[in-house]
């Protein structure tokens, strides 16, 4: 379970929104909605430990009972997806997916895991491709698999579907929510799209006046 306990963000002395308190159970999705600039993405940045210097954050976030706001960013076990897939451009598709894998295991096992992940997201045979040659939807799916193979305990999605066309958006959205439910991951989704909220189960919190 992912818990936001009285989380507030402020610029100078001006709070961006009234405090945020919410619980997201395993396999559930909480949508953060609200006008641009209200601090939706900043909540995710705070959770991940990457709040910009000009924003002050307060309040605790706990993941499976452990407070995480004081942990180094790479130990928080939060998988994050952005609006653009942000694949590493110097690596092939397979290398990108393998980047998320924990160390250990034989080369054959790692290759099999990567192949299985590509199969699951419908990109079998794309191992050696340059990420730049993929479509937006394909990139989003590779990014999801990369994050999932790192075995996070929660997913933070920062408008990951907004850059995709309608048909691709539905496909990628389905894949993301299916994988999250299968793995019983709590999900926080920042979005402007009511369809996203509906597809996620309808649970949303409005940040700021909307």
């Amino acid at each position, binding site marked *: 379970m992912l818990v936001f306990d009285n989380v507030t963000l402020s610029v100078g002395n001006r709070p961006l929104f009234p405090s945020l308190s919410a619980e997201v159970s395993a396999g559930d999705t909480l949508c953060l909605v609200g006008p641009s600039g209200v601090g939706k993405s900043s909540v995710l940045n705070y959770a991940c430990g990457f709040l910009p210097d000009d924003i002050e954050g307060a309040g605790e976030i706990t993941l499976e009972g452990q407070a995480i706001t004081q942990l180094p960013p*790479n130990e928080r*076990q939060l998988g994050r997806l952005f609006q653009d897939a942000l694949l590493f451009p*110097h690596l092939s598709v397979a290398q990108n997916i393998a*980047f998320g894998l*924990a160390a250990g295991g034989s080369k054959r096992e790692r290759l099999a895991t990567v192949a299985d992940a590509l199969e699951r997201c419908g990109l079998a045979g794309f191992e050696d491709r340059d990420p730049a040659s993929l479509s937006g939807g394909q990139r989003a799916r590779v990014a999801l698999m990369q*994050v999932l193979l790192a075995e996070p305990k929660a997913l933070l999605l920062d408008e990951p579907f907004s850059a995709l066309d309608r048909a691709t958006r539905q496909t990628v959205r389905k894949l993301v929510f299916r994988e999250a439910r299968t793995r019983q991951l709590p999900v926080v989704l920042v979005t402007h799209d009511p369809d996203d909220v509906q597809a996620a189960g309808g649970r949303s919190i409005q940040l700021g006046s909307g």
Partner: protein
Amino acid sequence: MKVWPVTVLLACTLVPSAAGLAAAVFAGANLDALAAVLQAPGVPRAMLLSLWTGGIATILSLGLAHALVAMAVTGGWRQRLTTLSLPLLALPHLALGIGLVLVLAPSGLLMRGISPWLSGLDMPPDWHIVRDPAGLTLIFGLVIKETCFLIMALFAALAQVPVAPRLQRAASLGYGPLKGWLVTIAPSCQQQIGLPVAAVFVYGVGNVDLALTLGPDLPPTFAVILWRWLLDPSPLIQSQAHAGTVLLLVLTLFGLLGLWAAGRACRALVSAISVGGRRQRRVRPARIGLSGVAVIGWVVGGLAIVAIGLRSAGGLWRFPAVLPNGLSFTSWQSSFSTALSTLPMTAGLAVMSTLVALVLVLLGAEQVRTNPLRRQQLGQWLFVPLLLPQMTFLFGVQVLLVWIGIDGTALAVTWMHLIFVLPYMWGVLAPARAAVDPRYEQRVASLGVNRWSGWWRVTRPLLTRAMLLSCALGASVSLSLYLPTLFAGAGRIATAATEAAAAAGAGTLRLAAVHGILLSLGPLCAFSAAYGLGAVLYRHRKDVP
């Protein structure tokens, strides 16, 4: 932990700059010696000559750089301009100077090319083309080098200016590309390239490398007079030289003040032109004229390199033959052992100073990657040594090095090279680091990878080409440094640059050409390796910068 890379960077640069300047002023502020300097034959004229050559070269280089960049950006040949500028930028001043002498002299390649069929001459004419009293050849040499430097500075400045929207807006209001550039882009760039322009002027006033080969002789520029005095064993002349370095500083500051006033006047003029309403849509004549000027500059620069090669390896070469009478490696044989003996030191200094600078710049750039203001400020501080006349600064540093007890050692020379290499490498690497999407860090962390491992696995590959290019530039700068090597090495450290300067100073052109070739080969190899490796690495990855 958070502050030390920037602190070390600044300490490396500012401590010797401040201490060097203070030491120079302290050692040189002797009224009797100052008076002796001013009364020495030719000094007032030499000072005027320095201001004239430095000032005119700066103004011409700046105007040409602006015009060429404007034409390149609006005409779609930006990449070509960069590719053409880099080799000339990398060519050491000394090598270019030696080459230009071999091209422009009355017995040079140009005159041979038109003799006797066009000029009707069977003997070299008695013309004062090179080392002319007005310093025109020196200005020409400076313009070739500094235009390339300012083109690069302008391209870097353009990264922060929305060029396309502004030019489109100007075009939609009916302005031609050059006028559009002048009123919408040039004022924004000017502030950002203020320091490089100042550095060009300071170098123009205080340089010895080019002035020694191309500058007038009776009297020479003020910096060359000081250089000769500093090499004189007489304590009286030495004290005169020390006082002279202070005068050179004052002269440079005076010149900078004049340049600043000229800049203000130019800005007012551009403002007046901006609201004048003239559109100046006809750009063809300007485009043709500028292309002609650029072609002349690059052809002469290219010929200079060819001429060095011909002179160093050519046999008997009577006027007006265009090519020498066969090959003769006598010069190479006689200077081979000298060249070989300087090679390890030359290469060692270049490698050491470049590697140390690379580490420092990467650490510093990492620290200020998300703060553009701090990045800009740090870049400005690193630029300080380039804004001081080398003679003044290096004499002061020499005093400091003697005091510390490391003068004349490779360590001292490496430190001096580092000071001059840092601003160039910073100029290439810091913007490249800042251009790496900061969200990669978050992405890497969300995959459970720690920051330094993430840097090594993601940021480093994305910076590989910039690192290679900055290393090539750093090594080229180090190879070309003459005065810093001479002063910090106390005359005991011999490199290709010091040997080339000694040969050029002694007037032995063939020997100078041999060293000029060696001096040119270093940057050529460094840039070839950088471009070659950059092209091979990640060649199948389209989005890797």
